[in-house]
């Protein structure tokens, strides 16, 4: 097991460096500079700015400085949010994104697994067709369409829920963003669960479980779900990546001060340290989570060799 983890780490760390390097190269290759605006700056001022941000140094020194900062988890200072370090911004915005993202994933897991299992157990009935059609709908409706429609119905017509803004952790303001974000994962997880369960339900060990007289409940919960959920577990890695991009849209629609919103703002402002900082942070979190998923998977499925 330890060897497996070490080997995965040996792939994970270079991957993180690759992501950060790609971002760095893209920013450096792009025409213009963060300080270049409509009017050209006087040469003396431009020279001062370049000196202040170390742009007069050769590229490998600039690259080295950025990378050294990231290794120490110090992402530098934002250019647009004066006097705020990137670390402060991440620390402030992460709880918002994490709250919405984790709640959305949990909701998706509960609803998706339930719907998918019901569909598999009642294959080719109206339950199956109904939940699969709903799942297809969930995959097909873009979240930036679903979100505003939910707002239109529940906030602006029925006046049940607040339409937007962040008001701390447990609050009614979270309901609509979480629903919007989780719709597509519910759908994917329902489809994955159904496929996984259908395969498992036909396998020999389920027949054995039934043959030795276990109740249907025990067969499904103790035996079938464990095997049938393997695809769902391996989907967790990609899901986290999509969850991160999903939060970008949801935070934008619902005006939540999360990581995604800052990332979009930074990209539009060309706030280079903030872009690199957020990309690095996301890459590290994402790849570590992927690593965790791999380990859990290897632990649960004895067929995976370390």
């Amino acid at each position, binding site marked *: 097991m330890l060897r497996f983890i070490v080997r995965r780490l040996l792939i994970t760390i270079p991957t993180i460096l690759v992501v950060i390097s790609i971002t760095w190269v893209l920013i450096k290759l792009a025409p213009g500079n963060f300080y270049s605006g409509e009017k050209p700056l006087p040469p003396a001022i431009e020279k001062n700015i370049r000196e202040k941000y170390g742009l007069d140094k050769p590229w490998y020194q600039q690259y080295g400085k950025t990378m050294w900062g990231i290794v120490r988890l110090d992402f530098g200072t934002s250019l647009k949010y004066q006097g705020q370090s990137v670390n402060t911004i991440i620390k402030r915005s992460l709880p918002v994104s994490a709250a919405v993202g984790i709640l959305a994933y949990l909701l998706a897991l509960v609803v998706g697994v339930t719907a998918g299992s019901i569909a598999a157990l009642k294959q080719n009935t109206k339950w199956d067709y109904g939940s699969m059609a709903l799942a297809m709908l969930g995959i*097909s409706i873009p979240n930036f369409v679903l979100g505003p429609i939910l707002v239109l119905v529940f906030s602006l017509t029925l006046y049940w829920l607040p339409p937007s803004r962040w008001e701390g952790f447990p609050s009614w303001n979270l309901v609509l963003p979480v629903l919007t974000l989780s719709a597509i994962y519910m759908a994917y997880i329902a489809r994955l669960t159904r496929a996984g369960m259908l395969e498992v339900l036909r396998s020999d060990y389920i027949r054995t479980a039934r043959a030795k007289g276990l109740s249907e409940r025990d067969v499904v919960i103790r035996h079938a779900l464990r095997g049938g959920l393997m695809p769902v577990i391996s989907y967790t890695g990609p899901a986290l990546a999509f969850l991160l991009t999903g939060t970008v849209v949801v935070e934008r629609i619902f005006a939540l001060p999360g990581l995604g919103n800052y990332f979009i703002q930074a990209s539009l402002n060309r706030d280079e340290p903030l872009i690199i900082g957020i990309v690095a942070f*996301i890459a590290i979190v994402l790849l570590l989570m992927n690593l965790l998923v791999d380990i859990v998977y290897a632990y649960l499925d004895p067929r995976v060799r370390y």
Partner: protein
Amino acid sequence: MSNKNNPDHEDLVHIGPEMAVAEADVHPDEVGTFVRGTSLWRDAWRRLLKNKLAVVGMMVVIIVTIASIIGPTAIKAIFGFTPDFIPTGDVNATRSLPPFTGPNGQFTWTHPMGTDNAGRDQFARVLQGGQISLFVGILSTVVSLLIGVSYGAVSGYVGGRVDNMMMRIVDVLYSLPYVIVVIVLLSMFRSQTPRGQLILLFIALGSVSWLTMARIVRGQVLSLKNQEFVLAARATGVSNTRIIFRHLIPNTLGPVIVYATLTIPQIMLTEAFLSFLGFGVQAPIASWGSLAADGIQNIAIFPWQLIFPGVTMALTLFSLNFLGDGLRDALDPQMRTV
């Protein structure tokens, strides 16, 4: 199966007694008669037509595509305005009008989806947006096909250490937060012209969505490359490139078509997402994503500005997904997983 008993009809298959044993679906009465032989594709087509949802999906996709292509021209011919026509003169006409409503509140067929803030016809704009969305979806899929199929085929055919290396690269790319990288790319290299941004967009989308395609093709090629027809080709001195492109790739077409059909809605969704955030297509070019982004600003007062592009897009993606699922079941029943 030979056709030598019946030289006039080459596609007829003689059903001999041996087939009644070998193939369960041959009825005893049919022994000794001739039936039309079916190819893989004709079989798949028949199975597809049996799947009602897939057929409905296919029809919706065809209708939306045709409407998007000829719609703006037809509207110009019938009502006399282009998608970017802004009415002048009548003050009431430059407001955002609800569906089927004229400037003075009367019923009219002119604007079945209402108008936008500047008084432009929403129906014409949705159709024109459809052109861009479908265009980006299809073209980016073609880009990802070209990269994915060649990469996967080479990796699978060469095998060994090269294969290991190439697939490890795919694994690494898989775990990248690629949308984040695409956003950085699109915002940093923001083109001055709408057309330039469009080209940047589908290069970006195409070059990140070939990974699954490469895996699928590699798997297929691995199972094909040791079959007799490849050995025969090699024995007669056909070059490796030719074996890959003329013998192996054509045999992987089934899964490739299925996956391509499922890639189009994914790419359209990503394009809409990027346009919604303001990194995708730029005005005056509009796509469903950018129309929805415009509409969201006025959701409380003019909900039709969001609902029509949004619902049109959802309907199209829904149909494409059903069509893709149907194609998968028809072409490759064993691939049925998700």
